């Protein structure tokens, strides 16, 4: 928290190093969230880049009320939502994109992890967008139900319900796929 505040302060002074550090600190998590939401790594990269460029341009006008991570996550999610609303980032099939890499060290482990990421991403694309958001933001984004409720403009119990329902549907989809 304190580290982020110092980074923000330096960033607002125009520090490129601070911006680079912020970018490197949050890029991967934002990319994972964006990919999970739109199921296409290229459009996810575009959304993350747009988010950081907008952030970079905000300069000393930036005013944060919550954490930097929540701010950036909200920014990416809004871009994905707007893109989907305007058919720019329609949820696609991850097979159409390059497979996402994973942190596995051996080629075999990498192949298995990639396959699993792909299956989960495809399953995510098959559930309701609000449920998908709740699941992804809660798990990969580490956001609180309260923050997600604020972002989705609904009550906390609704977010909780979306989260549970989304997980249940994901399990059904993944188990169904495994049974085939």
């Amino acid at each position: 928290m304190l580290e982020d505040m110092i980074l923000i302060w330096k960033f607002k002074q125009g520090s490129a190093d601070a911006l680079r550090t912020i970018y490197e600190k949050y890029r991967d998590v934002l990319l994972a969230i964006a990919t999970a939401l739109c199921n296409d790594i290229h459009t996810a990269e575009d959304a993350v880049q747009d988010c950081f460029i907008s952030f970079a341009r905000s300069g000393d006008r930036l005013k944060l009320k919550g954490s930097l991570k929540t701010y950036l996550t909200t920014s990416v999610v809004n871009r994905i939502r707007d893109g989907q609303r305007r058919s720019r980032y329609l949820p696609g099939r991850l097979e159409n994109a390059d497979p996402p890499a994973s942190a596995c060290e051996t080629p075999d482990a990498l192949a298995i992890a990639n396959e699993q990421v792909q299956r989960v991403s495809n399953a995510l694309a098959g559930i309701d967008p609000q449920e998908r958001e709740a699941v992804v933001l809660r798990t990969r984004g580490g956001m609180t139900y309260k923050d997600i409720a604020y972002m989705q403009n609904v009550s906390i119990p609704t977010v909780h319900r979306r989260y549970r329902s989304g997980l249940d549907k994901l399990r059904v989809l993944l188990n169904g796929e495994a049974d085939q």
Partner: protein
Amino acid sequence: MKPADHIEQFLENMIVTSDPDRNSRMLAAVLQAQAEVNEKRPERKNPELWRTIMQSETFRISAAAVIVAAVLVSLTVLPTQSAYANIADQLRQARTFTFTWIKQTNLQPNDRIAVQVAYKAPGIIRTTTPDGLIGINDTAQGRMLILVPKEQAYMSADYKNMPKNQPDLTEYIRQLQNLPAEADEKLAPKEINGVKAEGYRIIKKDTIMTLWIDAGTQKLIQFEQEFPSSPGMNFILQDIRLDVALDDSLFSLTPPPGYKEVANVSADAAEVTEADLIAYFKMWIDVTKDNTFPPVFVGPEFRKVVMELEEQGKFARPWTQEDRQVLFKGGIFLRTIPEEDWRYTGQNVPFGDPERPVFWYRPAGSKVYRVIYADLSVREVTPENLPQ
């Protein structure tokens, strides 16, 4: 480990990375954006690291921080707000305004709408879009005239019984005329188009407003609105002039000679019903080649989206007078429902699925919601059973 067995844990640890070249290009673009901003801004002085830290919620709840903050505040020379107070007062008393209203989402380079606005109290607004479309809206009379100069055509609209406090340009001007007497924060000066400007910030629940005042002439040169819940989107007012002489002809609701009428629509907000909204959807589905629901339902983006779809050849036939009437009544019905009581999820959804909800709303005084499905059927649903 199968993902289905430990889905939460799997998602928490899911890693996606870009290839190194793409990542380098992304970072370079981000740093370039910052460099461009840095070039334009004046030298900053008096770094405020501890003020930044002290403003965070975490530190605010700490008793020690509160004590230190009190000391810091007592040592700070509070900036004079006379320039801001004068502007707030001038805005409150102004009878006419002209300004350029810019909306941008920062999603893509050309995702920016600039509209010329002239306002005359108590509630007549004239807007001119970059493509030349002129709208004159007399909110007191409930009449609207839309002129298309390049086609020498016009559309007129009458409406009545509109509910108050709905978000529109009039409401936006009302906010401008009701700024608090004191700003929450004075900002470091900056240059705007070569003019040294003093900045003042007002923070409301969902909006951050910033006024930039010419340090020399003490006139308002820019007014900005940002929305923390939608980072990147903002409204900017520029070329602001107060109490300018505006000829009455600018606000005339009589179309210029030689203009032909393409539509004359009307609606009474007290009489429109859900059926008008369904007719709106049905009309849109009929007029689109792929029979889908509209990608955008209302708001300033609507016209832009319609124009884009027209350019893309998505419509099966030209719009008729009847279509426009249906559109207008459906839009008016929507204005009768508080924004927090409806939701649209039908963006580009194909017509036909009786289980796919596209819109729901809570009628005034009702405990249940009405849900419209993609086959245009309607069912009542309790709040706990609303679509997720």
